[in-house]
């Protein structure tokens, strides 16, 4: 298991998570996350050869319902908490003409 976390990694993670961090936060989080990840390393001691992963504790799989439309929330309720709305749309800054995220 890899250890430690440097500033470049912290900035990369923050970008993946879409969290803008100040320079001070990069340093602080780097230290805290490094210590936490160091603690996590102890899982390396556990022999998990042949062990199936448990994503959730119930023996329940592929729960489906019939593909029938249900009562919608309605446009008014859906837009009620919108920071900005126009007609039946959520309004956001322009998305096109951006570099790769």
């Amino acid at each position, binding site marked *: *298991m*890899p250890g430690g*976390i440097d500033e470049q*990694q*912290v900035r990369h*993670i*923050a*970008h*993946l*998570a*879409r*969290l*803008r*961090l100040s320079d001070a*936060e990069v340093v602080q*989080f780097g230290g*805290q*996350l490094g*210590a*936490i*990840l160091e*603690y*996590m390393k*102890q*899982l*390396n*001691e*556990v022999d*998990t050869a042949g*062990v*199936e*992963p*448990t*994503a*959730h*504790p*119930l023996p*329940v799989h592929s*729960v489906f*319902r019939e593909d029938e439309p249900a009562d919608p*929330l309605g446009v008014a*309720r*859906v837009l*009620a*908490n*919108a*920071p*900005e709305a126009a007609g039946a749309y*959520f309004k*956001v*800054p*322009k*998305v096109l003409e*951006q570099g790769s*995220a």
Partner: protein
Amino acid sequence: MAATVTDGITATFERIARFDPLLHCVLGLLEASALESAKRLDEIRQTGAVPGPLNGMPIAIKDNICLDVGMTTCGSRMLANFRSPYNAHVVERLLAAGAIPVCKTNLDEFAMGGSTENSGFFPTRNPWNPDHVPGGSSGGSAAAVAARLVPYALGSETGGSVRQPAAFCGICGLKPSYGRVSRYGLVAFGSSLDQVGVFATDVPGLATVLGVIAGHDPRDSTSVAAPVPDFVRTLNEPIGPLRIGIAPEYFGAGLDPEVRAAVEAALEVYRTLGAEVHEVRLPHASYTIACYYILCTAEASSNLARFDGVRYGHRTARPADYIDLYSASRAEGFGPEVKRRIMLGTYVLSSGYYDAYYLKALKVRTLIRNDFLAALSHCDVILSPTTPTPAFRLGEKTADPLQMYLMDIYNCGANLAGIPAVSIPCGFTRAGLPIGLQLMAAPFAEGRMLQIAHAYQQVTDHHFRKPPICAG
């Protein structure tokens, strides 16, 4: 003259007004809707209609559970003005049973924390000593019941967030089996771990509320179609042969001597009730925290991606571009613990680290779950302290996040394994702080577990003790 529901609800709000300025349990009061519901229930009562099982009972609701009245803030500035367009499933059930939500309670932001100090608004104080934390993340709900502001409250658990504050606040707190109670309308933190939980001052209270909120809900694909037993009726059925499991892993280093003494005394009480005590082993117990914090933060990083300033919640005032819209809105809306956990979760799921951390933790989870299932095949319940120490002081654990995480050591196992667990009061420290006793049982064995907890309360009186400030 018999008291009306309106009288009871009015008295509840008077009591909240009297004590909440000290305790800070409440994020939102629901006076108008509560009094309206009370009036309606009083009118129905006049017609002679049979009241529901919680008729007219005031109830507090943790503010990460959606209610279509007032705000649902999750204790976060990200959702400070968010009005839920729907009621959670558990709220629908409570309303149908005649319960009256009177307030939304404070919590660690997005349920991330063990002290309620991570609330984006203010910390809640422990009614037994206001310089101490009530625990978390459901600290507001626990403090409200402990101070006898309300008889029942809903909380939520991902890693002990009902049991731990119940222990710190000297009341009863229940985590149902995963799948027993619908999560529809519980704002998701760790979807494979989350469960709505119940606070009450005694085990019959837990059983009553659980009976109301439990059951299959087609809107939650992880809610189980198993029939819901009558938890209240089974409380008083003969207990029969009783086997208590003790795991030495829960009585090792770090356990406060006063907590140890109170829990050992509780075990003696069970011996006098005829219980056989069996040693059980939980060999992977020491890996619980590492496993839990990898998995819950991974799930949280995914669940909290929806808070991006687009459709609801805080949006930054002047985004430079659409990436900045997300990054700045999230930076401004989330507190440091939430950011820390999102970052940790993102890291363990990221390319190059996924196998070493996340997949490894999923396999360790299997081993932890298997440990519990094996142990519980030899006993009815595993008995342990709920927490290694009583409630700590405000500010005592905030400097080092890892120290705070280590407090969850006796709790997270039940969430990872999906098993039911309960905390009940079993004593007090010399300084007057409550001590909690934890019982854990096999999946869907809440009935038996509550019966065993109830048996303890029939012959002890710790659960009757109230915080000194609330004597009036």
